[in-house]
């Protein structure tokens, strides 16, 4: 009974995701030709950055680093999948988050990389491990999943991955040189407080609400 | 209050329950019968003339000649600020309760004086006096699986405990000194 429902849920989720992915991937990605106004700007930026950028690594190194940390990310993500102990899962997740942060650095988003480390690895992950400690009966909590369900989920996810990859490879992506704009924090902050002011404020209010709500939920009697 | 007066009051109140009073000794005490001991204890603690609010010690005795075990309760009256006018008595007194050596059962007084809790456990552990009504009468100094009550005069020390040899001098041919 439970298994059935679970499997059904899995299929439901996968179906939704598939549909969403398919619809977004088949859409025409805006190419530079579609947005002439911005294109000129970007070329200008690109030209400038060739001269000023000191971080632009050479492409072989970038490839090496990408494969190294992309591999780490994937291995860690798979580790999360196959591990049963929650704390070990969290440790694998740490690997994934760290590798993702390195990839952000690699893509020139240094600020996001640092934020990823400080918020995810330093905050969220500790919160998760803390949650495990507070809610575990024995040191090694394991909730086993029926084998059938594992296979079903694995199959579904495999199909999804193949489908996504096919779609991704099939789509014509614009190829822009690696030397894009290096994002400085000043620009970042300016954007955040001008164009994205409303989401920024909403986000901060949300955080406040979450803080109060989480405290209330955890403290609640009964 | 002198021990003599205490004995007189006890005799007035409890009559035959006071089996004996030993006043000539270096440390005077009264011998109380087992069946009235709890009442006497409550009286000693609560009566305005007594106010023995502190149970200092329970000494267990092995009276081999009389084939009896005994517990001696040493009581003090300690002034406590704010516990009535009678709380300034500064006397002390001892009470002895004797039990049959073969079937040593005594009523507990740990509800009257919480201090008796551990003393009774100790008397049980080392002398084998069973305190009826004690909430947790387990061994306190010896291990839980210890056999016998070491302070009895006929106690024989075991030669081995869980494979650990005792009396090693005799068992092992090692040079002494």
């Amino acid at each position: 009974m439970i298994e059935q429902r679970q499997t059904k849920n899995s299929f439901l989720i996968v179906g939704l995701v598939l549909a969403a992915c398919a619809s977004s991937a088949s859409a025409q990605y805006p190419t530079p030709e579609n947005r002439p106004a911005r294109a000129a700007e970007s070329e200008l930026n690109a030209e400038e950055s060739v001269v000023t950028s000191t971080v632009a690594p050479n492409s072989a190194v970038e490839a090496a680093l990408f494969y190294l940390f992309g591999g780490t990310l994937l291995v860690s993500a798979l580790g999360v999948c196959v591990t049963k102990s929650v704390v070990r899962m969290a440790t694998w997740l740490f690997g994934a988050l760290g590798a993702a942060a390195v990839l952000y650095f690699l893509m020139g988003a240094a600020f996001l990389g640092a934020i990823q480390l400080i918020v995810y690895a330093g905050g969220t992950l500790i919160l998760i491990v803390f949650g495990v400690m507070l809610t575990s009966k024995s040191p090694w909590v394991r909730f086993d999943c029926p084998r059938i369900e594992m296979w079903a989920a694995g199959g579904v996810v495999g199909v999804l991955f193949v489908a996504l990859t096919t779609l991704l490879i099939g789509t014509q992506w614009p190829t822009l040189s690696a030397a894009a704009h290096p994002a400085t924090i000043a620009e970042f902050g300016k954007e955040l407080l001008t164009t994205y002011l409303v989401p920024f404020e909403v986000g901060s209010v949300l955080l406040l609400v979450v803080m109060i709500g989480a405290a209330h939920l955890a403290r609640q009697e009964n | 209050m002198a021990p003599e007066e205490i004995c007189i009051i006890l005799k007035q109140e409890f009559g035959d329950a006071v089996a004996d009073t030993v006043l000539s000794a270096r440390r005077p005490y009264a011998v109380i019968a087992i069946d009235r001991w709890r009442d006497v204890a409550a009286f000693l603690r609560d009566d305005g003339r007594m106010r023995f609010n502190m149970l200092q010690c329970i000494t267990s005795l092995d009276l081999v000649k009389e084939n009896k075990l005994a517990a001696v309760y040493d009581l003090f009256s300690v002034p406590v600020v704010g516990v009535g006018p009678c709380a300034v008595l500064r006397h002390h007194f001892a009470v002895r309760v004797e039990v049959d050596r073969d079937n040593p059962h005594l009523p507990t007084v740990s509800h009257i004086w919480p201090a008796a809790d551990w003393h009774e456990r100790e008397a049980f552990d080392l002398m084998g006096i069973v305190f009826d009504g004690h909430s947790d009468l387990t061994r306190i100094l010896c291990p839980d699986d210890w056999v016998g009550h070491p302070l009895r005069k006929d106690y024989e020390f075991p030669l081995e405990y869980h494979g650990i040899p005792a009396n090693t001098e005799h068992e092992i041919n090692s040079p002494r000194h």
Partner: protein
Amino acid sequence: MSIGLLHYLILSAGVLCCGLFVMMTKRNAIGILIGIELVLNSVNINFIAFDRYRAGGGMDGQIAALFVIVLAAAEAAVAVAICMNLYKNINTIDVDRGDALHG
């Protein structure tokens, strides 16, 4: 060889699938939370990759990723609080046991 957008997208698809798998197979509420974090990370990789490899200025992708991180932190806080509440009520964080509405 040069690394392009496609590489990052495929990587993120892989991470997404792992995250979904975790969400589907784990019964532990916190395990599911970990799956969600993986999915959100794959989304972030997409955002930043698009931000980097697309034409045009601005940093919309990065800012979207920042908001995702913020929301993920908020969501994790609430989720852990819910787990603890669940644990208090039914003494386990097995999600299948939390099906009754009396909590």
